[in-house]
């Protein structure tokens, strides 16, 4: 089996979650989702990717509000949210907890409603991130009946595991553990309750073909917008 970086495993997993989407938007500071999109494009998938923070050739000509207007119109299939805290109802907190201040809610309070699917992504898998109840709701995972909502959570991906969101049960189900992690460790490191799939699957590792693309055209593409990330994962790469 090929050696791979954890970031490469996560990017391949995100790429599978994106699936058959037509239009994916990637927001601030999201190098792994951006890598997943670049991988799908390198595989020849007919996907439109709008990178909010693309430094050159940015897709928006109406300023930074255009992304939100696109989402409001129903033109964004998949969006990504990270958070300082995520709870078992898929609420996200990007504002504050326990005396600590985080950057802020960004577009979460709108995009979580307006995008057709949202993939929650946070590498740190710990009881301080995955909490029973968030200290501040930047954006709710579930809305009351009668409140307009086009989409919501699809899955929660961490550095340790993949959880699927079950809309009908409004709970997560642990779908797979990344290689090197097991059910007991995930339970101990997760602050909220969730359902189990038995037996627990192992998250598929990147194929040789995926790794070749990641380390070639994808690395060069990502280096342009996320130079620090590209250097950390792939070493020195010349951006396209």
């Amino acid at each position: 089996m090929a050696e791979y970086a954890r970031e490469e495993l996560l990017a391949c997993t995100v790429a599978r979650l994106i699936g058959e989407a037509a239009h994916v938007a990637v927001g601030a500071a999201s190098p792994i989702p951006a890598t997943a999109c670049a991988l799908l494009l390198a595989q020849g998938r007919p996907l439109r990717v709008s990178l909010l923070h693309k430094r050159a050739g940015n897709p928006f000509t109406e300023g930074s509000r255009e992304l939100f207007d696109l989402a409001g119109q129903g033109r964004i299939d998949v969006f990504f949210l990270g958070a300082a805290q995520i709870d078992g109802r898929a609420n996200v907190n990007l504002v504050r907890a326990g005396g600590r201040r985080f950057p802020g809610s960004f577009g979460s309070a709108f995009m979580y409603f307006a995008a057709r699917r949202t993939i929650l992504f946070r590498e740190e898998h710990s009881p301080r991130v995955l909490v029973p109840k968030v200290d501040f709701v930047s954006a709710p995972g579930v809305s009351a009946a009668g409140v307009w909502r086009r989409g919501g959570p699809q899955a929660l991906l961490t550095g340790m595991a993949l959880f699927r969101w079950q809309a009908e049960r409004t709970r997560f189900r642990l779908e797979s553990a990344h290689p090197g992690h097991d059910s007991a460790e995930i339970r101990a490191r997760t602050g909220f309750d969730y359902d189990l799939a038995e037996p627990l699957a192992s998250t598929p590792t990147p194929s040789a073909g995926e790794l070749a693309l990641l380390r070639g055209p994808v690395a060069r593409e990502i280096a342009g917008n996320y130079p620090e990330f590209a250097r950390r994962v792939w070493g020195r790469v010349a951006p396209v």
Partner: protein
Amino acid sequence: MADLAANAPRFLADAQAIAAQVPDGAFVALPPDYSLVAAEVVRALVRRRARGLRLLGVPVLGYGADLLIGAGCVESVETSAVSLGEAGPAPRFTEAVESGALRVVDSTCPMVHTGLQATEKGVPFMPLRGVIGSDLVTERSDWKVIQNPLTSEPDPIVLAAAIEPDIALFHARWADRSGNVWIGRRRELATIAHASRRTYVTYEELRDGDMLEDELLAPGVLSSVYVTAAAPAARGAWPLGVVDLYAIDDAHLAHYGRVARTREGFERYLEEFVWRSTRERNSSPAPSHA
């Protein structure tokens, strides 16, 4: 604040002259780090020891706001986030909020845009989907959830109150002799200029002629009707960037993100990159940030 901009554009000498036009306590709208920040004016505001500024992030804030916060120029921020992007959390913002020195009016990106668009149109509020169920709604007395008046079905919807900044402040690639400025695709700068009582712009280069008479340039132009005053500032966005001219100085932002984690490190940074560069400017006609 005084009236909206008049038709006759004013040109000022430099970024320092613009900083002198920004009064203490003003409500100042700033673009995000990727969208033409007037960093040279930010440094000049630190040097003139501006106080009590209320910053509006359109829709987020970064390096420029963190510098102003650390230097004690800021009373409050209304924003969707403050972050240095890849260089990590904004250290002076984080410290100021956690110590109780800075008030934050938390928002979410499209609510900022919607509030400014209401002011562009001269209406008191504008609705937006989503947001309901967020704790932001309970914190914001200026956001109201109402029943959609156009349907008999239950349909709550949130209203953003019009946001009226005193001052819009940003950098531009070009100004022309008619006082028009070229902002390219960064149309959020046009939105904040439309919505603000006064707009101050620094620019890289002055162009001859009128850019509104050039069909290729005109769509990226902000007309002088919105521009209160403009001033030259070569490399005026540094360490942030101007597309096709100079890139964001990632190494510098990473350096700032590290050293500004402590008060002492931040003071040393100010000494090196804000105070010392003034002294060099005063003793040399060709300032450099290299």
